[in-house]
């Protein structure tokens, strides 16, 4: 027999949004709980920087809170939040590349400190060979750097769909494009990653 507590249905995103609009701040806490891991994971893959990830994901929630009244379809809170997040991440990347900020997490970033791997750099003699890298955890690091180099749409589509396993329809909604376009972005991103890693 089912536990009585299990039978109590969790409120939907839409219901929570209505509660927040009605003045129940605690309902927003539940929305944050539901989406903060996904938000952080997407932000991290888009920014490749932990500090920026924390700031941008936090800012995304606060923007969402401030603009909650403008959300036409409360049930679509998740995709809406992810769109805010991806826009903020994109802006952060642009300002970062403009300012050439010094890297705070050097191991994951290129020598120029702007978060981009410089694929034209001569290989470091102390670095493992590409084969060895590909065999181990370094492969993921290389992948992360290669993802960082992808064009924005391809990167967002790949991160949301292939890494975070978000439904294609939802990704299309966030990126404001068709599902077919998402498929193509994901494929193009994968192909570029494969070709880039093969060149190493």
């Amino acid at each position, binding site marked *: 027999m089912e536990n009585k507590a299990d039978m109590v249905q969790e409120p939907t995103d839409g219901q929570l949004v209505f509660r927040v609009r009605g003045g129940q701040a605690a309902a927003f806490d539940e929305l944050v709980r539901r989406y903060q891991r996904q938000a*952080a994971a997407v932000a991290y893959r888009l920014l490749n920087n932990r500090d920026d990830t924390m700031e941008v994901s936090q800012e995304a929630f*606060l923007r969402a809170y401030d603009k909650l009244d403008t959300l036409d379809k409360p049930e679509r809170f998740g995709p809406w939040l992810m769109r805010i997040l991806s826009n903020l991440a994109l802006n952060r990347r642009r300002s970062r590349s403009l300012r050439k900020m010094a890297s705070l997490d050097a191991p994951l970033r290129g020598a120029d400190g702007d978060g981009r791997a410089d694929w034209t750099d001569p290989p470091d003699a102390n670095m493992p060979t590409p084969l060895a890298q590909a065999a181990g955890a370094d492969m993921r690091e290389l992948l992360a750097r290669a993802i960082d180099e992808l064009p924005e749409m391809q990167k967002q589509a790949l991160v949301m769909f292939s890494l975070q396993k978000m439904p294609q329809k939802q990704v299309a909604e966030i990126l404001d494009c068709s599902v077919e376009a998402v498929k193509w972005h994901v494929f193009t991103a994968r192909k570029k990653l494969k070709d880039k890693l093969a060149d190493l």
Partner: protein
Amino acid sequence: MVDKRETNWEFQISQYLDGLLDGPALARLQARLEEDPQLRETLRQYQLMQEQLDALGREDLAIDFDAQRAEIMAEVRRRRTRGSWRARAVRPVLIALSVAAVVVVAWGVLTIARWTLPGQAGRVESVALRPAALQQGQAVASVVGPLVDNIKGVVSVQARRMQASPSNPAKSSPAGLVVVSVGATGQAEECETKESQALPPNDTDTYWF
């Protein structure tokens, strides 16, 4: 017409990895893989890469989500308080401004109405001639009304119809219809004058018609 994507085997592999391929498309790819060892190698590379992508997606970010949530909610509460404080502080100001705006608008409308409607600016109570001190055609008018608060003195008086006084033709004082200009709009109050009468010399008193 054949979709170009159908013959783009790498695209088909990408779809296959995502579980989006079935039916004839899946059969076509499988047949192709059987006869093309290079495509099998390509598939292997994509599979290997997807495994790494999956691992990246599962990677622990070592973020204290409870602390982050607490921080977000603290800021949310701060904004709520600030918002409601602002609302409380701003509301009386807005009400006062609204009332002031209504008063100003009402006053403006009344003013315009008074200045534009005939006889509303002021009412000429009396017009007196002062032949000794004034030029011909001038008069002393006493004007009262809501906007011209009991003005008394020499005002611009235009005699539309100047008539010589029959009793004293030499004086040729205004008679008939005298127009007294009141205010900037030139709104006038018309006053029917009577025939003027001879005034004592140096008489400074107003002479009432």
